[in-house]
């Protein structure tokens, strides 16, 4: 029943290299033969189902098609069907290609050594720039300038998703694609982890995703809200500043303890209803520490925004849209974002 002229996925694209593998299946950098355009191909097997195309696949791809209008969500350009060696139906999601992600970007800066606070850089720059190693100096200047822009783009992309009633649930630096030349940031892997799950070692999975997980999720809340994504945004914000994960737990319990050590162990006063959550236990009692102890080089406005992203009570956490309006972004030139 193939229409004449419609190419199968294998005929339409030349695979150049495999660039990723994980919960979403294999990802290839590929060239579209007709146009020469470089794309990212995400391949996933369509599981056989007695009732045809699985509903979750159908609904998630439809969501991606709809969300692809925003400049801060990675664009799903096409969906191709193919067959694998065993004759099973395979879907290829054709995405715009982005050359890096925020995880790699942060790592590239980590190798430059300790952070110099942006406000100190500005003072030093105005006094006598020549006393510093130029590369070291400008690397940090570069990052401090782009911090606001990257965070604004992230909030804008999340606001777009939430404005459409879509939660991401797995925001992390690896899922935030970047173009180094334009410094554009785009959200990826919307819903894919759920729709196209591939068996993966639980330990690895938990390590990868625990660090950005909201406390209400860790404590077993059954009703997610958009606030779970804003918690992740806050963790990413801190990591952009320090180049280290804010809460690097290696188990669900350790993840909670990391959070409690910094923000204080929650109680019914700061978070009504917390002790009734499914996974709630008795925990060591810590007092809240100032966020500046964890993110010492972030300025006061940034710390205020971060604190609003890391509110314990989900309903009190700042929304993505409100975050875009925060005074921290007032001096950012938003015309091209």
């Amino acid at each position, binding site marked *: 029943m193939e229409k004449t002229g419609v190419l199968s996925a294998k005929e339409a694209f030349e695979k150049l290299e495999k660039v990723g593998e994980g919960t979403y299946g294999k990802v290839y950098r590929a060239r579209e033969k007709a146009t020469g355009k470089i794309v990212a191909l995400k391949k996933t097997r369509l599981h056989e*189902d007695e*009732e045809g*195309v699985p509903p979750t696949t159908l609904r998630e791809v*439809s*969501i991606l*098609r709809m969300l692809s209008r925003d400049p801060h969500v990675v664009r799903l350009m096409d969906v191709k069907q193919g067959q694998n060696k065993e004759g099973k139906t395979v879907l290829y999601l054709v995405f715009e290609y982005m050359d890096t992600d925020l995880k790699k970007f942060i790592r590239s800066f980590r190798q430059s050594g300790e952070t110099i606070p942006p406000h100190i850089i500005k003072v030093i720059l105005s006094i006598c720039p020549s006393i510093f190693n130029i590369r070291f100096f400008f690397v940090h200047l570069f990052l401090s300038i782009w911090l606001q822009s990257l965070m604004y783009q992230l909030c804008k992309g999340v606001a*777009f998703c939430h404005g459409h009633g879509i939660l991401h649930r797995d925001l992390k630096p690896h899922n935030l694609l970047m173009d180094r030349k334009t410094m554009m940031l785009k959200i990826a892997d919307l819903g894919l982890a759920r729709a196209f799950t591939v068996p993966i070692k639980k330990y690895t999975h938990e390590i990868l995703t625990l660090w950005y997980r909201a406390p209400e999720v860790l404590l077993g809340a059954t009703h997610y809200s958009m606030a779970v994504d804003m918690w992740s945004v806050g963790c990413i914000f801190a990591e952009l500043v320090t180049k280290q994960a804010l809460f690097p737990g290696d188990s669900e319990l350790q993840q909670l303890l990391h959070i409690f050590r910094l923000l204080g162990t929650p109680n019914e006063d700061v978070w009504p209803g917390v002790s009734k959550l499914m996974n709630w236990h008795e925990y060591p009692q810590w007092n809240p520490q100032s966020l500046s102890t964890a993110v010492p080089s972030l300025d006061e406005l940034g710390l205020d925004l971060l604190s609003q992203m890391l509110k314990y009570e989900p309903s009190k956490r700042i929304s993505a849209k409100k975050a875009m309006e925060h005074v921290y972004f007032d001096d950012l030139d938003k015309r091209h974002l």
Partner: protein
Amino acid sequence: MEFDLEDPLVSLEEEQTFTISELFASESEHVPSPNCLTSTHFRVFCCEAISLILQVQVSCKLDPFVAYLAINYLHRFMSSQEIPQGKPWFLRLVVISCLSLASKMKNTTLSFLVIQKEGCYFKAQSIQRMELLILGALKWRMRSITPFSFLHFFISLAEIKDQSLKQALKSRASEIIFNAQNDIKLLEYKPSTVAATALIFASHELFPQQYSILRASITASEYLDGETLSKCFDLMQDMMRMEAKELMIDTSFLSTETPVSMLERNTKRQRI
């Protein structure tokens, strides 16, 4: 979050202003391609298919939105294909596949067995193959933008304070939209135009004193073209006169015909 035909892009009212222009910008991706509308084959095929879908709706007690969505998929799919000749099974397979896709998008459980109880039986594999064919043709844009998507917006333009009045208006407009899906001619018009027209009719019927205010606020919308709206209005007026006439005939003969039989007769008449 659940996909809602009334709000395919918007789930929170407070976020409406963020996406309303996008809703209008996107709607042309969810209508059949224009060339097919003059094709007799397309009209005949779609009339028969719609009749089948509405029969299943009645026999399976489907949410009317599921049937509406299935018909949207049908129109979009068949307008992009050649109508195959001499394959009577094709129509039924397309109908089953469109209903299946629509029910999945609406998160309704609808077994293949139930849909097919009155006809020949297709294997799940065949249905999946047809589903994938339809998905490819529609470019997986399955969260369709339909007239229902625009009702809230247009009603809000009129600044009606009374909540029960707004609800009655929306219900009657929805009923008009459901009834209108039988007429292929309406496919010429964008969903937003159909929505605006249905609301104008509903307000005239229910609240004559509010009519002029609502009509003025809707027609003033920057998103609508006045001339096109006027033509759509005339077409819908003809349809509603026909509907009223048929109702009178049926009443006068004290007919016991079921809605399905009426639909079948309508289909035959349209074919002539």
